[in-house]
């Protein structure tokens, strides 16, 4: 959590752009990473990240204060919904929760080059493509962004127990896939 975040949130709710700017600087990279790992294209990730923060700034005075969530959880919720809406517009027949319709995106040769990341990270991304969306979301929030289980649970709308279970299952799948890649 950002230092003096509570005060910044109150000021942002009051319409102070400078306060929201500081929250943006802190949270934007993690929301961007989260979206990029889901859509796998830098341009799309930038557009969607922009949309997320635009929605957040527009609604922080009304919807955020009503929900009483940690700001990170609220931003991840917006991000998840924005990505889902994006897929609905571009791939109306795909089942997002089951990860269908991703093969085409994963096999595109330009994706990893565009993301400009190291070999280990590439392997991790490739392995994560075999997980369901909810499992992938949980792993990103828990192990890349180091969010506590409670905040992850609030972001994905599940109980803490369900998040721990999904996290355990997802890590198991990921290990197995990486082992197979290593051996194969």
């Amino acid at each position, binding site marked *: 959590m950002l230092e003096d975040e509570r005060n910044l949130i109150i000021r942002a709710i009051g319409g102070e752009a400078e306060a929201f700017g500081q929250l943006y600087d802190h949270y934007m990279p993690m929301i961007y990473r989260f979206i990029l790992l889901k859509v796998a294209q830098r341009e799309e990730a*930038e557009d969607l990240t922009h949309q997320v923060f635009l929605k957040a700034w*527009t609604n922080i005075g009304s919807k955020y204060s009503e929900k009483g969530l940690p700001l990170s959880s609220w931003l991840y919720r917006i991000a998840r919904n924005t990505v889902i809406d994006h897929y609905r517009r571009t791939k109306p027949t795909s089942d997002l929760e089951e990860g269908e319709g991703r093969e085409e995106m994963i096999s595109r040769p330009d994706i990893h080059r565009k993301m400009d990341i190291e070999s280990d990270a590439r392997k991790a991304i490739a392995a994560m493509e075999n997980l369901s969306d909810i499992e992938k979301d949980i792993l990103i929030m828990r192990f890349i962004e180091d969010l506590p289980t409670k905040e992850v649970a609030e972001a994905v709308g599940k109980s803490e127990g369900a998040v721990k279970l999904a996290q355990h299952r997802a890590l198991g799948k990921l290990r197995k896939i990486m082992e197979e890649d290593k051996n194969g």
Partner: protein
Amino acid sequence: MDKTIEKLKSLKSIMPDADFASISRSVILSSVKTVKTKRSFIYDFGMSIGVMATAVTIAVLLGNVRTPSAILAVSNFNTVENEAATIGNDIDVVLQEIGSFDRSAKKTALALNEAAGNGPAHLNESILSAEIEKLDINPSAEQDVETLLNKAIF
């Protein structure tokens, strides 16, 4: 640490483009300012209309809408006294008029009852017969009058 988790953590090195971050930040903050300004204008305008409507409603309900000159007159105590006396006189006049209307209404009602019961006196048959009997008609005098009239004419 678990190697799988280590590999996941390596993804934290992914960072957004600095130009994108800067442009997106300024666009978001400036665009929402416009929205907020419009919203506050609509809100303020609505509030003003509401306050005005409430004030007019209260004034109408109290039935005490005064002109600015009348409001100024209130500040003068003598004027208030005179105004009160005038209103008192007006009330007396109105009460007298009410009494007068009451009396004339009673008379009208009495006359209507009488007419409905007996009919007008000049059409009553018994009265007309009595009047005919009282008439003293002399035929010779009538003849004299007729002769004199003929002479005067011819």
